[in-house]
């Protein structure tokens, strides 16, 4: 390719722009992690700085001194995330497969049945009252799995992925070989949809991991609080934080860095999933996709 002046100029502008965006997204994470290690004394005298001179582990020590509540929250989050994600991914892909099959006469009606729920809803008040008073889901661990269970757009993306990557003739020949509809789904469609399953699975897992809304609405029992909601309670009041971690408020408690250390702990493992699924991203989310 010819590399003229325009190409050089474009690269200079591009690198500067992309680097600025990169720093803009990255610095808050660095600042968060660094600040969580700053000593309380330093923060009070100097405020947060990107490179504090006094490092301290006291905030982390405090969190793990009485770790029952944090571990409990971790446990709830991990169970809900793994059960919810596998259930959602399996059932969503199955529904997507049904809507992809050309011999299903009502496939477009089914798609619209799902899509309509994004156009119109009854509002928060009926939703809350029906779930809490009619389905009795309040303070029930099931609610944490059920509320974020499906997302219409993920189902439609999965359908378009299957439509774009699995030739009809493959299904036909499997049928001729005597495979039933469910067997075709299990043995052919699922294995061939890996890129989409990886990226959509990650999105679903993130929705579960980061969900603080459902527990805030429906959970009052402390033993069912997931991680993000526990974090929210800690952030909204330091005294609550003290109560959560210990029964007595200590005067020398590292209040400032405690909030940030807790944030680091709560963000935790989910972020490490990313590198493993990243390579599927662009392939997995083809856009024709978004359209219903």
């Amino acid at each position, binding site marked *: *390719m*010819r590399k003229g002046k325009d*190409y050089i100029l474009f*690269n200079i502008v*591009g690198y500067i*722009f*992309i680097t600025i965006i*990169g720093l803009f*997204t990255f610095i*808050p*994470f660095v*600042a*968060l992690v660094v600040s969580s290690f700053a000593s309380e004394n330093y*923060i009070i005298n100097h*405020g*947060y700085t990107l490179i504090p001179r006094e490092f301290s582990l006291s905030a982390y020590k405090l969190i793990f001194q009485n770790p029952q509540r944090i571990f409990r929250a971790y446990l709830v989050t991990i169970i809900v995330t793994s059960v919810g994600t596998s259930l959602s991914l399996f*059932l*969503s892909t199955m*529904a997507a497969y*049904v*809507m992809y*099959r050309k011999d*299903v*006469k009502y496939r477009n009606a089914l798609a*619209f049945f799902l*899509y309509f*729920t994004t156009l119109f*809803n*009854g*509002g*928060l*008040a*009926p*939703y809350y*009252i*029906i*779930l809490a*008073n009619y389905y009795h889901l309040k303070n029930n661990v099931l609610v944490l799995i*059920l509320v974020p*269970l499906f997302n219409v757009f993920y*189902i439609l993306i999965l359908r378009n992925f299957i439509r774009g990557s699995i030739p009809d003739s493959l299904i036909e020949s499997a049928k001729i070989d005597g495979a039933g*509809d469910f067997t075709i*789904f299990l043995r052919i469609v699922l294995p061939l949809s890996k890129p989409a399953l990886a990226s959509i699975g990650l999105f679903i897992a*993130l929705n579960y991991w*980061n969900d603080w*809304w459902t527990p805030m*609405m429906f959970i009052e029992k402390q033993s069912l609080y997931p991680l993000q909601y526990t*974090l929210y309670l800690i*952030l909204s009041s330091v005294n609550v934080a003290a109560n959560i971690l210990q029964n007595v408020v200590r005067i020398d408690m590292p209040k400032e860095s405690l*909030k940030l250390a807790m*944030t680091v702990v709560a*963000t935790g493992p989910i972020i490490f999933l*990313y590198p493993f699924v*990243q390579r599927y*991203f662009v392939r997995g*989310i*083809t*856009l024709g996709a978004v*359209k*219903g």
Partner: protein
Amino acid sequence: MKKNGFWYEIKKNKVLYAMFLPVAIYYILFAYIPMGGIVLAFKEFNYRDGILFSPWNGFKNFEYFFASGRAWLVTKNTILYNIAFLAAYTVFSVACAIFIAELAGKIFKKFIQSVMFLPYFVSWVVVAAMMYNFFNYDYGLINTLIKNLGGEPIDIYSNPTYWYFLLPMLYVWKWVGYGSVLYLAAIMGFDEECYEAAIIDGANIFQRIFYITIPMLKPTMIILILLALGRILRGEFDMFYQIIGNNGLLLDYTDIIDTLVFRSLMQVQDIGMASAAGAYQSVLCFVIIMFVNWIVRRYDKDYALF
């Protein structure tokens, strides 16, 4: 039995329809039945009689909602913020996608893309903690920096004007990684031959971007913007609630329909107001989607949502 009748079709593909059943039941229970609950907006709800048997009170809830003076305020805030979010998000996502697609340097690009996706992974609770780390009046990074440079620290949590700028910035920060992947996926699907022909004709890289890439991105942009317009009355509840919370000093400038509905329902326990505001939001939202879709259909059928 009729060859093309409803029951014949169900029977013929009974395994397939059964496979759709779990999702169908879920949406009936968690979307369609609550949809019927919209009648709550016309009732004076009490827990003993429930949604079905509580007495009707006509448009009283709506009268109260509009008389409260909040209706216009939250509608205006919701729409203006969403327009600002959408404009900033689209511009930055498209720009990032184009640069990432065209720049040399594979490893650097991969690294930056991973970095840009990081904010997508954290909840708004975590973002709120980061905001606190940066903007906290006493110890925040920004104020520490300002103080070290000899300036007066700023208190963003009691000064509304900062938020008109900060909230769109936060929105871009959180979603630009995701948005750029969507646009990048579209760019990757373009036909190479167009670019090769343009190079032979002597087009430079800027001309290629302005006359090939951007026009070819138009359908993707239109679909994404349409989808966003359909949600223009639904604010980013997570963001507003976590970042602003119930801060009274900021509320008039940052209250959106979703936060108003939430506060009326969970904190003030004013179910009448919550259902009226929620119904108002849903109906208006529906009308806007239908209207936008109708306009687009008249302009070009292929761009319409349905």
